[in-house]
């Protein structure tokens, strides 16, 4: 029984972590329809930027984290302005170009030798508490709090602000959005930049649990993709449900079968969902046009 309870608590935390990883990707790709396959690389980029600020420049942690989030947003903006804007609208060119950028960023960190346990970030508060008989560290609790805040904030942003509605508008019908006075290039730029910022935020909160590794970038991209595909495009609620499905499945396989099977379970989940319900669990947008 305590094992089950522990698994449930950690599965819950794991789900929030997944949601947090996917939320930025969901904003750029799921909601505004701009494919950013460099997402995992931006996540890792911001973690290394914080690490460098902390250990090479020697600025305090909060400042380093803020600077790295801003830097990542700038990187996203530059990437959109100078590369993505030229291939905008050709979805596959967007994918190939951003995938190329992501590869270049991740592999250059690997080449420069940024691999090892010394590349990690400090936790915010080094403490742990007992919650319903389960030991849990404060960092994980903070992840749950920050993650929930970000998810709620994003839902409010995309449903109740002019900018958020414009994000959804360009994904639904870019030409109609143009006639309504939405500058689609500006909105797409903002969505890539905000998505990058959310990736950086997720990295700042999540990375202290482990260490920074270039390979992690691919995993983050795959997980974000998985959550977005299963949840269905343009649906913040779907993203959350999907991250809970994958999060619980992963943690339970980890506890009751073997840790080697965790990745397989989440990948198999994508295949099953795509096969049975190609538009995702809650996807509504462009069902016919994009998928079938």
């Amino acid at each position, binding site marked *: 029984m305590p094992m089950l309870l522990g698994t449930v608590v950690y599965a819950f935390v794991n789900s929030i972590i997944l949601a947090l990883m996917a939320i930025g990707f969901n904003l750029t790709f799921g909601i505004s329809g701009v*494919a950013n396959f460099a997402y995992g690389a931006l996540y890792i980029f911001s973690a290394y930027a914080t690490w460098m600020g902390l250990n090479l420049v020697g600025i305090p942690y909060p400042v380093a984290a803020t600077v790295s989030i801003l830097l990542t947003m700038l990187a996203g903006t530059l990437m959109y302005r100078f*590369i993505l804007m*030229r*291939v905008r609208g050709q*979805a*596959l*060119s967007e*994918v*190939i*170009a951003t*995938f*190329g*950028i*992501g*590869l*270049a*960023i991740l*592999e*250059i960190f*690997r*080449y420069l030798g940024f691999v090892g346990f010394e590349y990690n970030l400090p936790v915010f508060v080094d403490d742990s508490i007992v919650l319903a008989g389960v030991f849990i560290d404060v960092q994980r609790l903070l992840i749950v709090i920050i993650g929930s805040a970000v998810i709620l904030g994003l839902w409010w942003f995309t449903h109740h602000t002019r900018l958020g509605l414009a994000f959804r508008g360009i994904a639904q019908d870019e030409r109609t959005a143009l006639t309504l006075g939405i500058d689609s290039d500006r909105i797409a730029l903002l969505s890539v930049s905000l998505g990058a910022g959310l990736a950086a935020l997720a990295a700042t909160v999540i990375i202290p649990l482990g260490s920074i590794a270039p390979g992690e970038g691919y995993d983050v991209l*795959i997980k974000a*993709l*998985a959550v977005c*595909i299963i949840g269905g495009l343009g649906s913040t609620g779907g993203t959350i449900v999907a991250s809970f499905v994958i999060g619980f499945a992963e943690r339970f396989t980890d506890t009751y079968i*073997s840790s*080697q*099977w965790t*990745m*397989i379970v989440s*990948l*198999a989940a*994508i*295949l099953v969902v*795509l*096969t049975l319900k*190609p538009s995702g669990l809650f996807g509504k947008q462009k069902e016919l046009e*994009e*998928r*079938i």
Partner: protein
Amino acid sequence: MQKRRERVDRGINVRSGDVFALCSWREMLYLAGPRVIPVVAILLLPLALGIYWQKVLLSVAVFALLAISWDLLAQTGMISLGQALFFGMGAYVTGILNHYWELPPLLTIPAAAVFGGLICTALLLPVLRLRGIYFSMVTLILPLMLVRLIEATRIFGGTEGLTGMTPLPSRWLEIYLIVGAMLAALFGFRRLLGTDYGLVLKGIRDNDRSVTNAGINIYWYKTQALWIASTVGAFAGAFMTHVYMFVGMPVFALDYSILPIAAAVVGGPGSLAGATLGAFILVPLSEVLRGVGGLRIVFYGVFLVVFIVALPEGIFHYVQRKYNQFERWVEVDT
């Protein structure tokens, strides 16, 4: 005074377009040159190269086959981000046949090409209805998943792989087999894309719903295209297994997915010749860059971005245009 650039077909291009081409050596050369010269050069190349560069030519041909297979799929509107799936499947099938049943390579390679292709097609069959990016995502995920599956279940040698494959009988057979396969695939599939069958495939890429409207079952055609492409990929994988005498998890590596795409993008997608040209540029380049190790993949990434943005048509189409047309500045009537 404003000017614009006008492109005009060269006279020789127009003349050699019809039957008069058969009357003049110049026009015959103009037509045959770009086809015959590279073929003869590629066939003579192994004789001129040392052992090391023969191996490089071998991997050029393997990557060219993967790039051709990618391009064929792309022509049917299916963008694959996981050519490693086809490559790895071929490699594992031949490995299993050779390791457990000890069949000779000349039997296992064709068998692996056909059955590896069939398995890949069966794996992708459920997601054939997906279009665009969604299909790409699934192809990106599948090889990763198979790697983890082999790691977790420890089947077929697990993380260590299967060793001690039978090598091909001779070095010359090896090199000419793969070069011949590459040339056959290149010219054969170019011809295939020119037929009515190829037209249907391209139609599916351009507008699948109007192809459906014409009463053609696009899923059946997509399945066929998928099988053709994955057989080509599986052949390359099976061949490479017998060269390295080893099959293991590295056959699903990212290299085998990224390099073919990079080759097709650099050389120019759509013509198959562009994909081959791209492999002939990128693979030797990566050999030269071997000293920089992991930085190679960074270069591929940068190459992808630069070509997608600056020369989206690719080198082949650029050269083809220069060969067939000339350009001049004309005044714009205002």
